[in-house]
């Protein structure tokens, strides 16, 4: 019954006594198909159970009222002479919702985007490319490589043009780390940007974040950064170094924060201002751009838990994994029950590294005997690298270097700011303790 009336205007009578007129809309994929969704003239949708319907007939549509379409950029803003390339990979930031089907479709043209966010034009003109449209959680090292290659190609052909990569937020931190390793000595800035509130709502953070990313992309910062809300207010965004950033909240717009580390810059989109926060920021360079875009998909990131057995490691080694990053406890420990499996992995030339599930603070495997025994077994300490960054780094090293000793040496060396040697008191959130 549902399909023949789809998008038609119908009159319905039900057993329960409803008499309504409205338009039949498609059901979202996960909704029960025992009901029809009807849009009434007052704008409300309601569901009517199919077996409650005693009479349904198609009726004529009332004449469509005239629609006045206001454009946000009616008054042309002052145009910037700069251009920025925006690469859409998916996620809520660069999509619009189809209200009738509930499906999400990507924004496809630059004019569509400029029309939605006319202020962008005051910062930069834009060009759009949409090589993929996938959810953040579907990203794999294969997509990192694809994105890295697209960016590399762009930077080689248009070295003066900054890039913005619109990305789903869930794994944006992984991709930003991947690009940080894959693309070094940047001729132009590369910003990853996402949205925690979908673009279909007036309170979406996507415009604010995009404006901030545009400011970043037109700066002379030669680093890969994630640019997102700094607080829950629409006051400033932060540019986080690609290897130090982590999504720390499931839903807040300031979910992205630099861990153990200070962000690169504060960006004020409405004031069109960038405030640099660090002294070690790399500037864009005309020479030396390097792209190593391979990633190994034979690296695993596993979390130690009480009672864990060595089976997990044995399984990975038997499956041919060449790198295992462990999120250990505290300063970098796992139960000694795992020691034999770790030794076996190392003997089979797998690289086993240690990070901490504490997230904050650094690994130090010399303090307790367990740590020392793990070091002896060949586990590489990851200093204060984020577990996710360590995982990406090992995948990148194994993808681009064949000599295992080189891989090991580079792993424990700071390459692009992923390891830091000082952690200040203030680099830890001040939690709420009542009062």
């Amino acid at each position, binding site marked *: 019954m549902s399909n023949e009336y789809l998008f038609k205007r119908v009159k319905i009578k039900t057993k*329960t*006594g409803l008499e309504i007129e409205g338009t039949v809309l498609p059901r979202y994929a996960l909704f029960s198909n025992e009901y029809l969704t009807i849009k*009434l003239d007052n704008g*409300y949708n309601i569901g009517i159970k199919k077996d409650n319907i005693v009479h349904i007939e198609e009726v004529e549509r009332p004449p469509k009222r005239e629609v006045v379409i206001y454009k946000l950029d009616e008054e042309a803003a002052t145009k910037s002479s700069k251009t920025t390339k925006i690469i859409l990979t998916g996620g809520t930031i660069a999509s619009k919702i189809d*209200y009738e089907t509930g499906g999400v479709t990507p924004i496809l043209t630059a004019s569509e985007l400029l029309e939605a966010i006319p202020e962008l034009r005051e910062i930069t003109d834009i060009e759009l490319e949409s090589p993929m449209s996938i959810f953040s959680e579907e990203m794999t090292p294969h997509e990192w490589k694809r994105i890295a290659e697209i960016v590399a190609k762009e930077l080689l052909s248009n070295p003066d043009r900054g890039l913005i990569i619109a990305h789903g937020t869930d794994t944006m931190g992984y991709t930003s780390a991947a690009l940080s390793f894959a693309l070094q000595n940047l001729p132009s800035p590369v910003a990853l940007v996402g949205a925690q509130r979908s673009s279909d709502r*007036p309170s979406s953070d996507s415009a604010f974040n995009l404006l901030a990313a545009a400011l970043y992309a037109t700066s002379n910062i030669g680093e890969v950064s994630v640019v997102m809300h700094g*607080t829950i*207010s*629409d006051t400033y965004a932060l540019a986080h170094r690609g290897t130090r950033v982590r999504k720390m909240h499931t839903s807040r717009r300031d979910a992205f924060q630099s861990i153990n580390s200070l962000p690169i810059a504060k960006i004020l989109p409405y004031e069109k201002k960038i405030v640099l926060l660090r002294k070690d920021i790399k500037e864009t360079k005309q020479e030396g751009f390097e792209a190593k875009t391979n990633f190994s998909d034979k690296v695993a990131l596993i979390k130690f838990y009480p009672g864990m057995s060595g089976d997990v490691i044995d399984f990975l080694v038997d499956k041919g994994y060449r790198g295992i990053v462990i999120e250990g406890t505290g300063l970098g420990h796992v139960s000694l029950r795992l020691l034999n499996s770790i030794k076996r992995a190392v003997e089979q030339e797998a690289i086993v590294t240690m990070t901490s599930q504490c997230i904050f603070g650094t690994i130090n495997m010399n303090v307790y005997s367990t740590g020392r025994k793990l070091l002896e077994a060949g586990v590489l300490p990851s200093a204060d690298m984020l577990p996710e960054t360590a995982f990406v780094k090992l995948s990148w090293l194994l993808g681009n270097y064949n000599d295992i000793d080189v891989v090991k040496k580079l792993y424990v060396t700071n390459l692009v700011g992923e390891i830091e040697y000082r952690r200040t008191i203030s680099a830890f959130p001040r939690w709420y303790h009542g009062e």
Partner: protein
Amino acid sequence: MENENYYQKIGLKVGLEVHQQLDVERKLFCNCPVTPQGDNAILSSFERRLRPTRSELGEIDIAAYFEWKRGRKYIYQSSENTSCLVEADEEPPHPINIEAVRVGLAFAHSVGSTPVDELHVMRKIVIDGSNTTGFQRTALLSIGGSIELSNGKKIRISTICVEEDSSKKLGEEDNNVIYDLERLGVPLLEISTQPDINTPEEAVETALTIGLMLRLTGKAKRGIGSVRQDLNISVRGGTKVEVKGVQELELLPLVIENEARRQLKLLEIKELLLQRGLKKEDIALNFVDITDVLSKTDSKVVKKLLSKENAVGLAICVPKMRGLLGMEIQPGKRFGTELSDYAKFWGGVKGIIHSDELPGYGLSINDVRAIYEKLKCSEEDAFIVIIDEERKAREGLRAVVDRLKMAFDGVPPETRAAMPDGTTRFMRPLPGSARMYPETDIPPLVITSELLSSAKQLAPPTPKEAIQLLVSEYNLNEELAKELLFDENYALFMDIAKLLGKGSYLKTVAWMLVQLRKALKREGFQVENITKEQYVSLSQKIYEEKITKEGVEEVIKYLCNNPSLSVDEVMDKLGLKPLDMEAINAIIKKIIEENAKIVEEKGEKAFGIIMGKAMEILRGRAQGKIVSELVRRNINEYLSAKKG
């Protein structure tokens, strides 16, 4: 106030929208309490901007567009007690509060409104910042039904919706609006009627009846701001105009009367325009910069406006409109006010100056003449001036011209705000259905038969049924029952009846809660000071016959001034501790002895006199019934002793 015939003549049609906050435990889409307990200090604040979004037709809500263009900033204050990440729009909404849905379905059942089979939560775009999301979540629960007025007339219900309340506005300065998140998300029931209401009195009765039935669910929140009424009003030949935010029921008739009159006046203006041979096309947007003329005047107002950076004075000449702009269309508000409201809304200017209010604002007759000359206006023309930045002034005049053109159609469709003086003020153009989108974060809720049958148990009686029940089950007479039903203490009465059980004592309790309270209030007693607990405690005394009606009155009067005391303490202080039979007997015996002569003379007929004297002493300390019995018995005993 006009009479019924008048409203029939003008063809008044009113639809009512009652918004009632629900007294359920949790907010509609999160786990925050509806009635917060404890300290409510503001702990954090954050600021946001909102931007209009496009509907599926590519439309942008026009009011939303203008709010955004103005660069409005919204500052939200929140307390940990009253709001969470959901209100801050930092966490997706939780599934809809089923309790609120149940109350809505209960009400729907009582008015014969048919529930939908599946509830879809919608987003209604509201971009004034009162919702952090930029929309209000709302869901249509049921369609149809009616209520009956006392004259037997039926007012049809169109829809019943459950929706979230908005944030309370704390203030506004420059381009910033400050809101408190406490109220955001409190469940509201919205009951909309068809435009079946034809007089202000019917509107009041409709509101009262709906309000009463909502209260009878036992889940209606009380207190200031817990009920708000919106209206849509039209007169014959006019247009449906929405009037928002009538908080005081007493104001309802005046708002309707004023709005009806405004529409009639606008229709009158339309006629006058035609009489003067004017057409829409005659109204043109030909600005003339009259800054030079204005700067030569001595007006302080004009000087101040011109001193603003980049300020210019732009004017337009409006042919043959002299006298029309100054026509009063609402008490104290002229047609010019309508033009000014449009200029303010669309242009963001402070206001307009029009020729019908001149000379004024410190502008002399000569100044006016100079402006007329500059504009090349003739005597019968009017002019309008806006002094502001050029862009704003232009936008403002453009809006004025648009509004003037609308005058040829009579009444423009608008959303207006009810003002405390009973007039209405332009808020925004009437929104289209384009502002409704599905809330994609919340799956639809199936209205199951279990949910419906549990709702039926909450279903409130109609006022008629409720009065009958009070008479038959609670021993009240019809008049008291009616009075109690519409009284704020009705719920308390039911609580007491539940606590202590039914019985004839409830008559006295109802009298205390309603009639006595009102009487004392009229006398100037602070009856608001009496707590629920004190009323319950007094009812307990009434139930146990430990206090008389007179005693109740004394205690309440005393409590009004000493609200911290308990009922027992007050009864002690007033010497209202009930006396035991022996003590009463002793007092009566003494009175008879003191009045032996009268008793001997009058025999049993002395009862009245003795009774009166006894009650003088015993009032409030003994039940009249007991006293009268003892007086009678003692007189008889005394007389037979004398005989014997």
